[in-house]
């Protein structure tokens, strides 16, 4: 099932499938470790469309809500 990062529940793990953004966003996310085929887990999500914290390669990254919506993830539920 493909969902975006904001729809993942804290504690869930999935695989990044697609980043629906411009070249700039893509580069920034990639260079921080978020890119297709990477394992990603959700740590927390903040109220009122706040930032989403994820973990990739043992490193936690805070991603703004709008950006997080552009990151599609495959999760087994």
């Amino acid at each position: 099932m493909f969902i975006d990062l904001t729809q993942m529940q804290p504690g869930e793990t999935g695989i990044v499938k697609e980043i629906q953004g411009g070249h700039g966003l893509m580069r920034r996310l990639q260079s921080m470790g978020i890119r297709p085929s990477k394992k990603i887990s959700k740590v927390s999500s903040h109220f009122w469309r706040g930032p989403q914290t994820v973990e990739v390669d043992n490193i936690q990254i805070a991603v703004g809500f709008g950006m997080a919506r552009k990151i599609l993830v495959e999760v087994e539920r």
Partner: protein
Amino acid sequence: MIEKILLVGNPNVGKSAIFSRLTGAKVIISNYPGTTVEFTQGKMKLGEETVMIIDVPGTYTLEATCKAEDVACRMVKEGGLAINIIDATNLERNLHLTLQLLEDDIPVIVALNMWDDTKHRGISIDVKKLEEHLGVPVIPTCGLTGEGIKELINRLPEAKVKSLPASSDSQKWEKIGKIVEEVQKLTHRHHTLLEALEDLSIKPLTGLPIALGIIYCAFWVVRFIGEGLIGHIFEPLFTKLWLPLLMKLSVFLGEGNFLHHILIGNLIEGKINFGQSFGLLTTGLFVPLAMVLPYIFSFYLVLGLLEDFGYLPRLAVLVDNFMHHLGLHGYAIIPFILGLGCKVPGVLATRILEERREKFIAATLMAIGVPCMAQIAMIVGLVGQRGGGYVALIFLVLFLLLIIKGLVLNRVLKGVSPEILVEIPPYRIPQITAVMKKLWMRLSGFLKEALPLVLLGVLFVNILYTLKIVDFFAYLFTPILTGLWGLPKEAISALIVGFLRKDVAVGMLGPLNLSTKQLVVGSTILALYFPCIATYIVLIRELGIKDTLKSTGIMITVALMIGTLLNILL
């Protein structure tokens, strides 16, 4: 022969720690991405030669996305030998920059930093194999303890120019994937207590109470240490040791003498009064050393601990939502927190923000809404005598103003605030020696840069008084001072000195026999109408003349309005 060495790497991999190891130079090191926003230069002896070493701000790519990264990219283009510092606990992502460097025409050597962290994180890396893959020397290091630094220096001559053919991002990632698979093994391990704490402080339900708790504790510790130092050490030193000496000097010089006026100042009821005499050796030393320094000490001690622990980026995530209303994202909280200490590093730190609009808002809000520690200490010292509630009132007004100004600027300025995207470093137990070193750097910075300005300010005011220039300005500004703000016209001297130093300026309200209301209005205006000259120079450098003038216009308008409003309401 090596002429110039660049320390290049992702943010928060410990470049500054290695820089400090190599050069012996003192630089600020913290546990959050974006500590270094400007390059720092140092020198190192390499055999007979002296080599220049440059600590480059952290960057993920050689194509800049913000000003700090832009500095980094330009430095690399200028050439030299690159020590690529990579975080051993995060090999994959760090290697991307390494591959970019290997495609450039500069010699590269790799320092596999934070090597000590790999062991308890269950990561093992085959350094020999990594070296084979990259084709340049790879040396495990630990900047904080100094492990591996000697070997790094010894092997500098082995650095190689690879000039690999340019490849696309995806080709690089594919290559990195293969390398990492071969050289790195991860073993499963249990969550540590620190990691449990990491999770708790980033989840909203537990994170917000933790944040409030930390801020509350930080506030009380700063206050407790600051007050303790003043009451038990600095005030007794001044009154018991320094005062008797000054009394002798005063008698020797004779009151009414010009030198007496400059050095000792006015005698209040026949005595030297450290708060009101306003001589170079009396108030001029008492304000910076006995009133401000203790708070600078306690503030930077607490800040240093929080920085090194790695808490600040978590706070940034928690306040992100709120900051968006002010046209900023959460990471802008870091310049603000630094600005509470001194606005000069505060304004500089706005470089970690991506867009010009954001930088403008952050710098403007800081320049007119965030009082620096020198100013806070003086307000606490002076207004606090009339009751803690009045101190709280001033800070409440400043805080509300900050929010209102943010809300308005966010509405008025075109564009939207960009979203946060930041790496959250793991918690690390602060090393006492590192914290103390950083504290000492900041304290000596205050003594070297602020103390002379304070003395200059006091001297300046005395001369202005003697030459009757103050009277002229007082006459000129009476309509505003008295008419709008309800202050005596003598308060102009505080406003004049306020351009130079805020602590002296607030101190100058002391001898004016102001009512409590006037004191509150005066202190608030001093925080609003203009930042100190040092901050202003940095503002011009960071924002450019045009934006700085815009910002100045806002400052003056706000000061006029709020001064009048407080005068009417209180």
